[in-house]
């Protein structure tokens, strides 16, 4: 299992795992650039990579690989997941929207997918500020937003920058609706109660009522003293699925495992509905959730900040409806 600071380190580590430790597959990663580097290494060596934290659509499209599977949801799934909540609240059609976008690959990919979604539903991205990745103070951006008076503010930021933005947005007490196209549970935990607000997408949350989720949360909390966040779910689920595939095929051979997943078996992924890896781009097709801040008087502990919305797509709808379509994000696997 690996996580790396940059693509060069990622590919060195991947080479080492394969050459020295002779692993059958690699699970992990958070940055799309590093994910791509790992995909290239596994492809050369005929091994598998299960991505649990890289979101960019490009990794499932132009940069896709037959040897790479995506447990982490793609930017499209995040955007369409939370987008449905914005649409429901009438915040997109005919509205002017302010984008705050992290100025690197992930943020720009998310902004591209998000802009397409907004425009397809009658909205306009009237302002967009590219935020350098080392920015920690958002007061100047918040003043600009106040001057612009948008109908909705969308964060295409990542990690600690979301925490900082949310804390400082609350500090300035502005009342424009806001939210984001990308999110992690830990970000809300880091903001703390009273600071967290807005509408956000999430791939998994520890309050989900699914049986598998409950058992995982109980075991994780017992061991680490706090509930798992969505990245922990990704790593656990990937490991579980790989173990199941190896047991079912009685093999660690990459081709055998690809063959197993390419039949699109239904998989228990600790959510309400089962998921499956889509054959054409190896994306885990799964339900997503939206969440908002829980009213302060209902909070049970410091981890209980979020009110989980209904699953997206709704009951009875096709899970693929939020995944990138072939036209949006074509993937061609190089020949085996």
């Amino acid at each position, binding site marked *: 299992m690996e996580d790396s600071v940059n693509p060069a380190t990622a590919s060195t580590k991947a080479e080492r795992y394969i050459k020295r430790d002779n692993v059958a597959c690699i699970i992990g990663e958070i940055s799309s650039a590093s994910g791509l580097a790992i995909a290239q290494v596994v492809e050369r060596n005929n091994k598998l990579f299960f991505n649990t934290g890289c979101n960019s659509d490009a990794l499932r499209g132009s940069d896709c690989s037959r040897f790479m599977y995506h447990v982490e949801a793609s930017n499209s799934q995040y955007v369409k997941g939370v987008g449905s909540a914005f649409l429901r609240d009438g915040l997109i059609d005919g509205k002017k929207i302010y984008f705050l976008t992290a100025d690197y690959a992930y943020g720009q990919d998310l902004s591209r997918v998000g802009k397409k979604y907004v425009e397809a539903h009658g909205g306009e991205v009237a302002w967009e500020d590219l935020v350098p990745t080392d920015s920690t103070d958002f007061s100047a951006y918040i003043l600009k937003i106040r001057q612009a008076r948008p109908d909705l503010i969308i964060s295409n930021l990542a990690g600690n920058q979301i925490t900082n933005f949310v*804390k400082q947005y609350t*500090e300035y007490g502005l009342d424009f609706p806001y939210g984001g196209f990308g999110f992690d549970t830990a970000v809300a935990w880091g903001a703390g109660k009273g600071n967290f607000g807005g509408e956000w997408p999430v791939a998994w949350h520890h309050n989900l009522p699914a049986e598998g989720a409950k058992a995982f949360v109980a075991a994780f909390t017992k061991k680490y003293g706090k509930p798992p966040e969505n990245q922990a779910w990704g790593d656990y689920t990937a490991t579980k699925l790989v173990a199941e595939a190896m047991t079912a095929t009685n093999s660690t051979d990459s081709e055998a495992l690809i063959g197993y997943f390419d039949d699109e078996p239904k998989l228990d992924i600790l959510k309400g509905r089962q998921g499956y890896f889509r054959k054409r781009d190896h994306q885990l097709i799964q339900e997503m959730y939206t969440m908002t801040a829980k009213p302060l008087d209902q909070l049970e502990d410091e981890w209980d900040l979020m009110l989980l919305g209904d699953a997206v797509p709704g009951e009875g709808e096709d899970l693929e409806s939020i995944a990138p379509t072939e036209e949006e994000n074509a993937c061609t696997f190089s020949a085996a």
Partner: protein
Amino acid sequence: MPLELVFITEQVVNGLFVGVNYLLIALGLSLIFSLGGIVNLAHGGFYAIGAYLVVLLFDWVGYPAFAAAPLLVAVIGVVVERLFLRPFYKADPALSLLLTFGLAMVIEQALRMIFGATPRPFSIPEALRGQILIGDFIYSRYRFAILVVATLAVAGLWLLLQRTPFGRIVRAGIQAPDMVGALGISLKPYLTMVAAIGLGLAGLAGTMMAPITGVHPAMGAEILIPAFVVVVIGGLGSFWGVIFAALLVGVVRGLTVYFYPPAAEASMYLLMLLVLIFRPRGLFGERIARFE
């Protein structure tokens, strides 16, 4: 006033508030370098420790945590100075760079091991929440409080350095340590005190920033480089230079966010480049004979 000008003025004033964030860290950095000749790469680590301490202590003791956290960082500073910095005052500067670089990594990893990699939640205390509206301008009440505390800290430090026997010896020690020694005064206790004050100021900055920024292990690394840029622009050893540079960097950054946000963080490096071309010693840099 045309609307555009109102917005720009608002950004300039907000930039001054942002500059205050860099100020206290940069002052401590400058002070420790001036007297001890040590470029403290671990300075950001003490900023992070200040933030974590206030998060821990606030639940326990409430508002006094905001005073207790920086004082505790100063105490930790005394220990660090005695154990680690002291042997390096007269050594090759490369050695103290390596030492403090290592120390920065140790602090960051220690915070990660103790508190985990996810940010710690912390909010602005109830009494300081809210905004102040002045005409068309909006300001955060909490940032006004930061401004007041920082101004008091800077004024206190200035009085300490300019108006007390302690300050006279420190200033003499910066310019002519051998002469101070010849007069029979040992600089050792002064070096300890200066390290405690400098690191305590970094702790104070971390304490005050904790409610409005993410409290996570790498937060020290985030703030260290801007603080260095401020010291370089202001000029090493110059008290007012550091203050002027911190505010200038804040304003330039605010205006860049207004006109061209992608360059917001790069603007300070461009400013540093320009200053170094025209004034290699920094805007108000003093000539310190032993560093020439």
